[in-house]
């Protein structure tokens, strides 16, 4: 327990340093946040135009899209604001830049994931909060379920992205593939789950767990569905275990590139 508290303190310290580093370039920091906010807004416009013309698709109307966007953007924002290196993991492995982390007396994976804070993802985070306000579900029960579901979805985002990044241990240059996998998770999750049937539905609940970062959290909040919440928690736990195991196995295959890197 003392060890766990110590490691959490260490991660909190890393985050404080990353935030201070980001804030050093305030104009850039703010432009990134505003930029990402606009970015999400433009994407949301697609759905407004779509439902303006076609009204309803397989039970989804614009209200469901509001909730879907609130959950996904906030979860994505939390995930990669705090674990900014998860998205760069394949690149770091391929370039032999894990040496720095391996030489220090701290658990490698958490140190690696949390040692960089995302900038533009704070815009996602903000967008998610505002999108939730538009859903009109402002009673304490819904808010509590929303927060818990979003945190679990954020864990799944990080676990999946980091696991995809670990493919670089086995394939060499897996930067593009891991990016595509992360994009696939995000893209699939942003579409109404009712579009998908049969095997694809199964894939979206397992290999590319898009349902766990989109449809399931939406079901938790809109239906106050505790069964769905338990399923979501199980999904997050499995995601973290898979990430840790794949990283551990992959690390045995890691070869240093003898590259000189300076980490500031």
């Amino acid at each position, binding site marked *: 327990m003392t060890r766990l508290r110590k490691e959490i303190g260490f991660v909190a310290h890393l985050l404080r340093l990353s935030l201070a580093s980001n804030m050093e*370039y305030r104009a850039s920091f703010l432009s990134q946040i505003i*930029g990402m906010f606009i970015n999400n807004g433009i994407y949301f416009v697609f759905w407004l135009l779509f439902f303006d013309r076609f009204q309803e698709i397989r039970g989804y109307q614009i209200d469901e899209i509001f909730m879907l966007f609130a959950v996904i953007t906030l979860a994505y924002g939390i995930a990669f604001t705090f674990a900014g290196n998860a998205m760069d993991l394949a690149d770091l492995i391929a370039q032999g830049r894990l040496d720095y982390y391996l030489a220090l007396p701290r658990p490698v994976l958490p140190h690696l994931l949390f040692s960089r804070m995302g900038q533009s993802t704070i815009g996602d985070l903000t967008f998610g909060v505002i999108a939730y306000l538009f859903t009109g579900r402002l009673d304490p029960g819904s808010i509590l379920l929303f927060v818990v579901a979003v945190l679990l979805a954020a864990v799944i985002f990080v676990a999946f992205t980091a696991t995809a990044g670990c493919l670089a241990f086995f*394939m060499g240059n*897996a930067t593009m*593939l891991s990016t595509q*996998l992360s994009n696939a998770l995000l893209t699939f999750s942003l579409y109404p789950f009712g579009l998908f049937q049969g095997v694809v539905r199964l894939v979206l609940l397992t290999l*590319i767990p898009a349902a766990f970062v989109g449809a399931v959290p939406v079901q938790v909040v809109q239906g106050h569905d505790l069964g769905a919440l338990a399923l979501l928690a199980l999904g997050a736990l499995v995601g973290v275990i898979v990430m840790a195991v794949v990283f551990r196995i992959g690390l045995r295959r890691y070869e240093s590139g003898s590259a000189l890197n300076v980490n500031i």
Partner: protein
Amino acid sequence: MNTSLALPVRRGSLRRSLDKYVAIARTNLQNRLAYAWDAAGQGIMMTLFIFIFAQLWRATFQAQGAVEIAGLTLNQTIWYFVWAEMLQLGKIRHVFTVSREVKDGSLAYTLGRPYNYLLYQFASGLGDSLVRMGMVLVAGSVVAWWQAGPLISFRPETLPLLLLVTALAFVLDFCVLSVIALLSFFFEDVHAFMFIYHKIVFVLGGLLIPVDFLPDWLQAIARALPFSGVVYGPSKLFVAWDTGQFAGIVALQLSWIAVIALGLVVLYRHGMRQVSINGG
């Protein structure tokens, strides 16, 4: 030090100058093919993306009970996205390379080399792009054929002109992305600019929804902006060839390439004035 954006004047012929960039493209193509697994992985992902679009538009056509929406059948709409995704995923990915080189100063080392910096980036990314476009086209076609059958409306005799309009779309996109990359001279991180550009292409460029499906007022705006020349134009001509529309799209692409390339030259020269080289 020559910091001009113009092609370097050399004693050899134009062909020798071009050979240099062809060699760069070939080297990077070979490099890319060495990581076949990574490229194949993108092909697999592509099948998933086309599959999503097929499901969305199938459900939409069913819900509307329509055979055609804005002049496009379901078959044409699904195949439209194959070409659109090929263009989107095949684009040259030099933004973060340029951005990194500007920020860490390594740009200064490349300026002394006997090539034009941006043409180098174009040639370097071309090999990689060709592999990705090939993968996307093959994988996407398999899914589209499976979901909607062959593209009945395709006219093989228009292929050379279709390739021309596709190449212009590629160059136009490169110019826009290069402007974003060079903004690194002024901004610490250009991620947001690139994301915004991508998302504008999603909507106004016709990547997520063909421009014909947009409300009339928005169509008029989209058709005048460069984004529709990047994705919508070539993709629409692929599924529904129209000679009049071809001429309009090429004119739009050439006009915007001229305007953006001019902006690129100004930006590059302005940015280069800020580069200072200390020591060796």
